[in-house]
């Protein structure tokens, strides 16, 4: 609890400091990271807490983004309408995809969630009216009644508040009855059924909640740069979210946040800062940023197999 207050305290002061230093670019970067933190946290609910290795989480993220994008283009720009709609559509998609995929296990589950997500990706690419391959530009950020969320500082705080709510919600859920059942299913699914839990329903509920929150993150990412790209739904996006979760800590409250911050922070560092001695060795290393990120990730995963969150917590058992 103290840790959470400290983290959010720092995150709360951060944009003010950046503003004072006239470095608002970093506020925008931070908003993006926080949005991905929400998306990764939602994936962590299914993947980490629920033990369901969903390789299609980008579907819900992207669906949420497209709902907000399409509604904005059609003139519905109120966040109060568009965002719940994005959540509802993502939840519905998660219900349908989950209801079918959760009948399978293991590798089949991974592949079928991937397949469904790619299906939705191709559907979005084929929406020529709404940009198709090129993506969809929004007329601006959503409105919240008192004005738009165009101001980057205000936008940052909105995103931060939503992340705080999502984390608090996850914390409550994990410690609730439902959370205990989910943990039990991850631990021993057959036995959970044998002591009387309708396992499938619990897994589906978990999948839908995660999808809904993923859709919320999607609604935010559409607003972030007022642009929705179909690449948000691409399987690589699912993979990126997965990497964030694994990097940060599977089944830990802060795992998604840490993973998103480290991964996106690294990408930014490698792309935007030229390291002198490294450039002397390999002049165009920045063109191969993914490789560099990959090497760093590999090092992190090897040194902290339980994810970075594991380094902060000594209470977890081996």
């Amino acid at each position, binding site marked *: 609890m103290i840790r959470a207050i400290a983290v959010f305290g720092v995150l709360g002061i951060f944009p003010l400091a950046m503003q004072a230093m006239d470095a608002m670019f970093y506020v925008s970067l931070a908003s993006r990271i926080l949005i991905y933190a929400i998306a990764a946290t939602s994936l962590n609910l299914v993947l980490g807490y629920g033990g369901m290795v969903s390789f299609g989480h980008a579907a819900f993220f992207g669906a949420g983004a497209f709902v907000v994008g399409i509604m904005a283009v059609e003139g519905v720009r109120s966040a109060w309408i568009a965002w719940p709609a994005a959540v509802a559509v993502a939840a519905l998609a998660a219900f349908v995809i989950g209801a079918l995929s959760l009948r399978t296990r293991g590798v089949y589950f991974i592949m079928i969630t991937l397949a469904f997500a790619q299906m939705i990706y191709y559907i979005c690419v084929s929406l020529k009216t709404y940009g198709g391959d090129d993506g969809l530009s929004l007329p601006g950020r959503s409105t919240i009644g008192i004005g738009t969320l165009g101001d980057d500082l205000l936008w940052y705080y909105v995103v931060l508040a939503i992340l705080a709510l999502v984390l608090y919600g996850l914390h*409550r*859920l994990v*410690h*609730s*009855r*439902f*959370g*205990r*059942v989910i*943990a*039990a299913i991850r*631990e*021993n699914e*057959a*036995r*959970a*059924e*044998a*002591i*009387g*839990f*309708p*396992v499938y329903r*619990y897994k589906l*509920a978990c999948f839908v*909640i995660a999808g809904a929150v993923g859709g919320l993150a999607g609604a935010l990412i559409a607003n972030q740069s007022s642009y929705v790209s179909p690449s948000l739904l691409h399987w690589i996006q699912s993979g990126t979210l997965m990497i964030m979760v694994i990097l940060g800590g599977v089944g830990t409250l802060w795992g998604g946040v840490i993973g998103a911050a480290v991964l996106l922070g690294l990408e930014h560092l490698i792309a935007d800062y030229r390291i002198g001695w490294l450039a002397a060795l390999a002049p165009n290393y920045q063109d191969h940023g993914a490789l560099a990120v990959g090497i760093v990730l590999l090092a992190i995963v090897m040194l902290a197999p339980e994810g970075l969150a594991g380094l902060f917590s000594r209470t977890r*058992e081996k």
Partner: protein
Amino acid sequence: MLELRAVSKRYGGVVATDDVTLDVVRGEVHALIGPNGAGKTTLIGQISGVLATEIGRILFNGADITHLPAHARVAAGLARSYQITSIFRRFSVLDNLALAVQARSGSSFRFWRPLLTERALFDEARSIAVDIGLGGREDTPAATLAHGEQRALEVGLALATRPQLVLLDEPMAGMGPQESRAMLALIQHLRRRVSVLLVEHDMEAVFRLADRITVLVNGRVVASGAPAAIRNDPAVRQAYLGEEIAA
């Protein structure tokens, strides 16, 4: 209370259970014995709903449960334990039992209220821990329990669902003499509250516990009746007991 009517299970050409008809009467300990591969565990799987039953019918308290999913059978009062210990290894003993209590006490589609505030769940789990001889071990992670303690927890999980009938699949598997005695005492203790269908290889335990015995060989019932009758049944002696009595 449990009635099997001509229940069979085939895997391709292999017959696992074959035309099994069996009754478990309320209040009795009914033992199911037979040599390895006789289909005992398959039958337990069919009764508990883990394995589908396409041929035959299963009735519980008069209701047809043949096609009921496993979790619904537990809700109806039919719980099982496993031959190969199946517990929540990373949970403590208390959390294991509280989970099983939770399964039958109200909806678990509750997302907000902390579980730890539900004192009743944990109080009951504690009293079950004492019942199964794990008093004082409540906070131990299940994975670190001794084998006999894990077997006791295995049975405890089934009991915590408050069944009317419990299916015990070789509760004494892999136990030493002392652990076996403790398990025997536990089953003696619980027979006052629940009916038991017991699969067990330990013949001494079977003959001490069982009110009735059904013998399964190659998936078929070859004999069923009181222990004394079973002991003297020539077909049983030949098919199954023979080797043990000779030994």
